[in-house]
């Protein structure tokens, strides 16, 4: 189980990005982390994965604990070994390397050859598409295939927790559906998932629990089904709110001050 408690992250020693963020990812669950641009979602992923250093960031307060062990500000490789792997925003596949080599890099921390081979087989089973393209250079594949490769690469370590940062970014709706099914599949095999998304509908439709972030902290959380029903989430994240008679609301008739979120004081 991953626990982030009152985490505060500062970039360049001045830019305060996370201000007391607390989230929990219980074993075997899918947890969605929603929020607009600049809310701090990716920073949260970096803080958990130990990648803040690259961006001159640092967790100054609070803690990240995984299975009861504190991993705040640990090295990225130590965190991967502990069982948390993340798929970074924008896929970030190694474009120069072949699919096979990309997956080998994913399994870098796995010392044992036969374990690595087993993970490799599992990834190939999960993504038949990658099997076909094993020898192809990753940079020439389509966006969807690259996203599959990025997820497959992360699965090579057989993580206990998989962090997915915007897996639906830049993909066609049909591919988003495919990625969604894959996430469900991965979760059913026993991996917990922290799903960071702007596509709130997709994320909440598969998550057990959801958090809504704004300006560096959680403003709302609850069961995914509850969030889906929430009026403010509907209005601000799903764009679904309709008026009493059931028609779609025209924003032309809405005064700005009337569109106020209930959590904004």
């Amino acid at each position, binding site marked *: 189980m991953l626990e982030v408690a009152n985490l505060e992250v500062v970039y360049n020693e001045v830019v305060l990005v996370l201000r007391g963020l607390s989230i929990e990812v219980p074993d075997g669950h899918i947890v969605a982390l929603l929020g607009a641009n600049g809310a701090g979602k990716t920073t949260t992923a970096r803080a958990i994965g130990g990648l803040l250093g690259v961006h001159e960031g640092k967790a100054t307060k609070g803690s990240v604990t995984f299975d009861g062990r504190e991993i705040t500000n640990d090295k990225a490789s130590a965190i991967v070994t502990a069982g948390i792997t993340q798929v970074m925003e924008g896929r*970030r596949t190694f474009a120069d*390397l072949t699919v096979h080599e990309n997956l080998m890099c994913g399994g*870098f921390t796995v010392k044992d050859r036969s374990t690595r081979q087993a993970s490799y087989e599992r990834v190939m089973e999960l993504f038949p598409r990658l099997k076909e393209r094993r020898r192809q250079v990753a940079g020439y594949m389509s966006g969807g295939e690259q996203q599959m490769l990025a997820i497959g690469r992360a699965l090579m370590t057989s993580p206990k927790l998989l962090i997915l940062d915007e897996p639906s970014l830049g993909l066609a709706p049909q591919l988003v559906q495919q990625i969604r099914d894959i996430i469900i599949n991965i979760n059913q095999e026993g991996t917990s998932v922290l799903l960071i998304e702007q596509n709130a509908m997709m994320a909440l439709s598969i998550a057990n629990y959801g958090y809504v972030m704004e300006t560096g902290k959680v403003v709302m959380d609850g069961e995914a089904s509850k969030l889906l029903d929430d009026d403010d989430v509907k209005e601000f994240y799903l764009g679904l709110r309709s008026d009493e008679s059931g028609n779609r609301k025209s924003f032309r008739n809405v005064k700005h001050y009337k569109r106020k979120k209930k959590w904004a004081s």
Partner: protein
Amino acid sequence: MDRIKGFNPFTSIGSSALTVFIAAVVLFLINRAIFETTVLVQTLAKALGLGAVYAIVALGFVLIFKATQVVNFAQGGLAMVGALFLSFLAVDEHIPFTTIQNPLIGIGPSWFGWGLSVLVALVFAALLGLVIERIVIRPMIGQPLFSVAIITLGMEAFLRTFANDSVRVQLRPLGIPWGTGGFTLGGTVGDNGITTGGAFVAWSYVAAVITAAVAFVAVFLFYRSRMGVAMRAVAFDQEAAMANGINVGLVFAIAWAAGAVLATIGGIYATQPPIAQTGAVQIETQFIAFRTLPAVILGGLDSVQGALVGGLIIGLAEISAGQYLSQFSGQLGAGYPLIVPYVVMIIGLLVRPYGIFGTPEVRRV
């Protein structure tokens, strides 16, 4: 999905120029082979010796570039300091404190002692590489590559100052057992038992070729390993590599240690024929890195095969120009063979901007 191919007028000019050039060279070599076999054999042996040294030094550049995406400008400094380590150990300190009468150079370290000194010197060089990596390169992980490249330039200035200061104007011998000697191929044995004619082949050519072969086989095997693939991943995207649990610091350390070792080997050979005749470290030893640069760039900065092929081509071009164009040295200037590598590099780049084996940037269209 194809690699982007823009029209480049220089490419066609360059390739036709190259074709004519290669044809001329081949015809010329055939002519020489018939009329002056001995000179040709001697030239080729010398070219092979020089090419092997270039290939070794180029391999050091390539290893560090493939891991860090940075051309390590400190390679020359590392070469000289590494060679100085050997001079301290083998000649000043006589590790392991024995000398023998060596048939080739008179009094000097024994073969065993010298070999041991070389090993220790290489270990020191690797440690120096590790220290430099740890102190000045590691803090730059994830930072712009340009900054890192400039840091290596600063490192070069630092190492060069240290090395120049310890060499000053005198020569620092390395105690190489085979010295600058060699053997003769062919020729006729006269009545007095002295061979006349024949092609002279220095022992250092043979040694350089063997060393290069060992180094390249080792590096090829390394790149097929888990760590080798991880090294390429780190070169492509450090942050993504970290997110996958690859220990970027360890990869950098291995690359720098190996780079320093290869630079040192290059530095040692840079004191011997055909590069120098003294068998001793001098101020010019550090220039081996800059003399190798055309080979690295011609072969492709990120390619191991490129280092080998580029080194051999540049070695051949430099030596054969020195041999066969010597009658024009009045017009060309005395040091003209040193310019030849750069000319070959420029022609090569017109045809293949990424180098012969370099990887063009992967792009989707």
